[in-house]
């Protein structure tokens, strides 16, 4: 199980993530990538179409800084920094996409 941490909504970068992700992995959205948690972001839709059980987490501080905490997709888990730390321990590997 790998935790994929991604920090922007760049389409080419997300395509790389889409190619690399495995069904039991999790994705954590940080910094500007939290915008991908808004409903309808196409590459999230594509990822969920391929892997419906894929877990998505979103960093709460970065959502709040952009004023979109209340608007994220249902099923996405809002996480604190300490939960971010716990996620990195719960997964065997961490990959940072940037």
């Amino acid at each position, binding site marked *: 199980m790998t935790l994929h*941490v991604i*920090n922007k909504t760049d389409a080419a970068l997300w395509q790389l993530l889409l190619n690399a992700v495995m069904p039991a992995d999790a994705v954590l959205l*940080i*910094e*500007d990538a939290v915008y991908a948690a808004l409903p309808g972001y196409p590459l999230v839709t594509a990822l969920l179409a391929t892997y419906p059980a894929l877990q998505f987490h979103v*960093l709460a*501080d*970065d959502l709040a800084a952009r004023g979109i905490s209340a608007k994220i997709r249902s099923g996405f888990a809002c996480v*604190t*920094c*300490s939960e*971010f*730390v*716990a996620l*990195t*321990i719960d997964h065997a590997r*961490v990959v*940072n996409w*940037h």
Partner: protein
Amino acid sequence: MSSFALMIQGAPYSSGAALSAFRFCEAALAGGHEIYRLFFYQDGVHNASALCVPPQDEFHLPQAWQQLIRQHKLDAVVCVASALKRGITDSGEAARYQLPAANLMAEFTIGGLGVWMDAMAKADRVLNFAP
């Protein structure tokens, strides 16, 4: 308890990378984990400058690193090649290259990629905070 090696590649205020790394580092320490090493690489070396003066109502990230490193006695290494080409230097390198000043905060040391290799091998988890 787990140990972490963190690479920081973003300059303060230029992207969110350095602030994300700082918050992660704080949270890991608060959770009782070990920070095996902080490695400041590429533009990340600017976090170690003693000469940053942000406006008073803005978060002073270099100073916050300084305090966190001092408080927890962290091993904070700045990549020598990244630092020297960006004008970040300790007094030793300043003397070697006959520079008029040195600006690396005392809490940081200058090192090579070998110490990052060591951190990747020894730490339980490796995270790379880049722009």
